[in-house]
């Protein structure tokens, strides 16, 4: 009984426990809130790192909660994808809340700061829970925690837009969860199991007897998780929710939360449903077209936005399309590209949102037209924004290029160069809306004299710098994470 054996449970439970004590800390030891939050996430990050090493060295492993073997108890399954996603979530989440520890001071009322950290920790724990659990009902529970917590970190800001956006998000999230639960019921009815592995074993037989059931269940799952992951045309809630929230919330929502649902969908579609079922119903084809539309239309909408955060939010819709494009193409390279893009987009989009947050912190400007000349007054966030923008466009030596490379290659692998063209066109669209901002930031003069921006504290600069470093590092040296992504894709495809 050693300690590291229990990491899969601890990685979820420790942040939960710290979340439970956070309100107390907020009451009596306000200054402890930030270090405790950071500590909990650092612990999870270390645990995820350890788990990733373990997975890479000894292969996927599982953990039985309370020592009850599946199918009776709940099993946590740490495979490559889960370890990779847990690592992404905790790594990016850590940097975001580190940035937030200063940024939130001016966005939130002081009396709700403690609650913010509570919600944030719960959100982190639930996201990790979603990706590592191997039990579908357990996943549902974590989905609900995740949904409420992510609405909570929107509605915490004192603005009526936030309340409205949170409500819209909550309603659609609950609809999604409802569809998910109904799908769970349908699957349980025909398999008698909740555990992924056992369900996957029982499904081929059930498919013969109850094909309708399974198709409806699959449709409900795709719709339910698609709503949460903002897959076009189910994205209606996203622009408001992501743009009105406090900047760290926007960052975590865009960078991580929608990706977690994508991971859940990948696991369900690839690991649980039999491959023949995918042959009967053109689900993958549907996902492909939905993601194509997401990529094109998300980018188009982003072009016409004037609010920087709204633009980033629409861009997220397009980027989640990339992930699903990789899922739908069902070739190894494409899946690698899709999974890799989960990480790459998490780093770049959180960086972009944090940079936008830094602009808002420094100057109060949200409109793109107000950001002219910002490069001279706030160089570091602007450079970070630049790198993020280049990565979005897919300029080589940034990480965005690598995921585009794999996605494009995957599309060619299955003989569909059309989707390669889609990726390229959307890169062009990305360029059309990102690059003018960069250009204006450095080469335009503001129309009227603006007061010098507030100096950014180190807590905000360092995460930005780290994220930009990460984007470049993983663009130049992608093999750091490519190993685990490759294995994840191979495992999912059964290669």
């Amino acid at each position: 009984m050693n300690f590291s054996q229990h990491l899969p449970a601890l990685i979820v439970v420790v942040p939960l426990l710290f979340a439970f004590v956070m309100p107390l800390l907020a009451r009596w030891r306000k200054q402890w809130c930030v270090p405790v939050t950071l500590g909990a996430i650092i612990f999870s990050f270390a645990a995820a790192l350890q788990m990733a090493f373990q997975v890479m060295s000894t292969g996927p492993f599982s953990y039985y909660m309370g020592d009850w073997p599946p199918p009776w108890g709940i099993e946590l399954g740490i495979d490559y994808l889960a370890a990779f996603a847990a690592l992404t979530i905790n790594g990016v989440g850590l940097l975001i809340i580190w940035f937030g520890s200063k940024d939130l001071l001016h966005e939130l009322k002081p009396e709700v700061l403690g609650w913010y950290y509570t919600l944030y920790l719960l959100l982190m724990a639930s996201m990790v829970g979603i990706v590592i659990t191997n039990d579908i009902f357990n996943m549902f529970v974590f989905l609900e925690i995740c949904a409420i917590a992510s609405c909570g970190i929107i509605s915490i800001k004192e603005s009526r837009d936030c309340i409205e956006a949170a409500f819209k998000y909550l309603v659609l999230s609950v609809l999604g969860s409802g569809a998910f639960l109904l799908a769970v019921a349908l699957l349980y009815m025909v398999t008698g199991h909740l555990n992924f592995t056992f369900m996957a074993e029982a499904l081929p037989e059930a498919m013969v007897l109850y094909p309708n059931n399974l198709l409806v269940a699959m449709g409900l799952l795709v719709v339910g998780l698609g709503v949460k992951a903002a897959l076009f045309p189910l994205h209606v809630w996203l622009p408001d929710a992501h743009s009105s929230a406090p900047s760290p919330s926007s960052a975590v929502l865009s960078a991580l939360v929608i990706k977690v649902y994508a991971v859940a969908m990948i696991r369900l579609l690839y690991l649980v449903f039999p491959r023949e079922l995918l042959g009967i119903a053109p689900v993958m084809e549907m996902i492909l077209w939905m993601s194509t539309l997401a990529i094109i239309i998300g980018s188009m909408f982003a072009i016409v936005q004037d609010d920087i955060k709204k633009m980033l939010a629409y861009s997220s819709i397009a980027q989640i399309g990339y992930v699903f494009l990789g899922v739908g193409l069902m070739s190894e390279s494409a899946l690698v590209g899709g999974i890799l893009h989960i990480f790459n987009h998490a780093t770049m989009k959180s960086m972009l949102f944090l940079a936008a947050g830094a602009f808002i912190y420094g100057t109060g400007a949200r409109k793109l037209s107000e950001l002219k000349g910002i490069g001279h007054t706030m160089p570091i966030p602007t450079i970070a924004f630049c790198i993020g923008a280049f990565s979005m466009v897919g300029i080589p030596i940034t990480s965005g290029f690598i995921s585009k490379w794999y996605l494009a290659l995957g599309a060619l692998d299955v003989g569909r160069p059309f989707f390669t063209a889609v990726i390229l066109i959307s890169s062009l669209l990305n360029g059309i809306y990102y690059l003018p901002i960069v250009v204006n930031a450095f080469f335009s003069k503001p129309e009227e004299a603006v007061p010098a921006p507030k100096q950014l504290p180190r807590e905000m600069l360092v995460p930005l710098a780290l994220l930009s470093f990460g984007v470049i590092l993983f663009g130049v040296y992608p093999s750091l994470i490519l190993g685990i992504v490759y294995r994840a894709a191979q495992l999912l495809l059964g290669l």
Partner: protein
Amino acid sequence: MQFLGSFLPVWIVMFPMVMTVVIYYVEQRSEKMRNALAVATSVVTFLSVLALYPGVMAGKIIEFELFQILPNLAVSFRVDILSFSLALLSSFIWMLVAIYSIDYMCKEHGCNRYYPVLIITLASCMGIFMAGDLFTLFVFFEMMSLISYVLVVHEETIEALRAGYKYLIMTIIGGLALFFGIIITFELGGSVSLSNPVPLISEPSTLAFFAFISFLIGFGMKAGMFPLHVWLPDAHPVAPSPASALLSGIMLKTGAYGLLRVIFHVYGIEFMQETGWTVILAVVAVITILLGSAVAITQDNLKRRLAYSSVGQMGYILLGISILNERALMGNIFHIFSHAFMKSTLFLAAGAIILKTGKKNIKDLGGIGRQMPFTMFAFTLAALSMIGIPPFNGFLSKWTLSLGAMDAGVPFYVLILLISSLLNGLYYLPIIIAAFFGEEQGEGHKHEFVKINEAPYKMLIPIAILAVSCLLFGLLPSNLPFDLSRVAAEYLLRGGF
């Protein structure tokens, strides 16, 4: 020594990059140091390229793989005779431009931005020429295109920003087209390395055709190929003159270089001859020549006229590529040299005029030859060479190109070249005539004694060197650029080994 030799390409690319950072830090303290460092960097780069000469002329191909990004996708360097020729040319002109910039830029704002950008563009340009695979080429190509944006919008005027925006969008389109081509090549050939013993794509297929078109768009964009030239006449005039000289003189050539690489290394000459896809290139090249030359006549802004002239001249080069025989290829590579010398001379001379008189339009240039005889003399030399009058190098390259066209049995191309030369004459000669014999514009100047008002010598020397080389390389029957072109053409037709 072996190792050092193979490390030299990396050094040539990395040295200016590192120096960019150094210059960036030095320039906060001393402007003199900054200028000196910038010039020193370009000189050292030029000398380093020159150091490759013995090895390359001996037929050696230097290959060096820096590191792998993905399996079969590495950043690697490779120097053969073609790379060497173009790298030599570029670093030479870069050196002259850097010297020229010292006095030209001292009255401009934002020098602290100009010099690091100038040097890092040199680095990326060297990277393009020394790239060992298409991926590296692409990386440096994108880098150069994006960074030279800063040169284009240097003046930060509304027109500059507008032209820059156009340039940026076109650059991205070009970059993505290249990306498409490269990824198809990777898919079909399994690798994008240029040192593959056989061409990467051997079977004609729809995908291969897509890739060809993408490469054509990607590189043609940079080379100012019709109909993708639209950014060029806007972007080149608005940049500071030394930067225009580089944009027109060197950076356009990277597109031509890329096309050469694609045609000879990715597809191979037999493939091209079989499929006849180069006809597309020939057609657009002819249109480019005629259009560029014709539109240039209507332009009144001097630098804009020069920019359109560049479009026309790039058409020659593209035409030379499409003919696919040795003499055409030789003429084509030699024209890369010639045009670089001529167009840099012209732009630098135009810059000197703008600096001293502030006159940008041709109608104001009457009598300028009496004010700045030296500059205008150099301008005349280059312009005559442009028209293709013997014994300038422009004539030699056109002559060789025409021979190539005759070899290939298309005298039509020769006709095109002649028409274009005529058009060139139509738009260059009036400038020269007006400059030397025309009346000065403006009031009170008529009977005044014309004061000689030349640019500082640091600007004149580069102009002089370039103008003299236009004459020299046309006059001497065997000179370095001509030999290099000949060897490079032979080398390419052998299949690049």
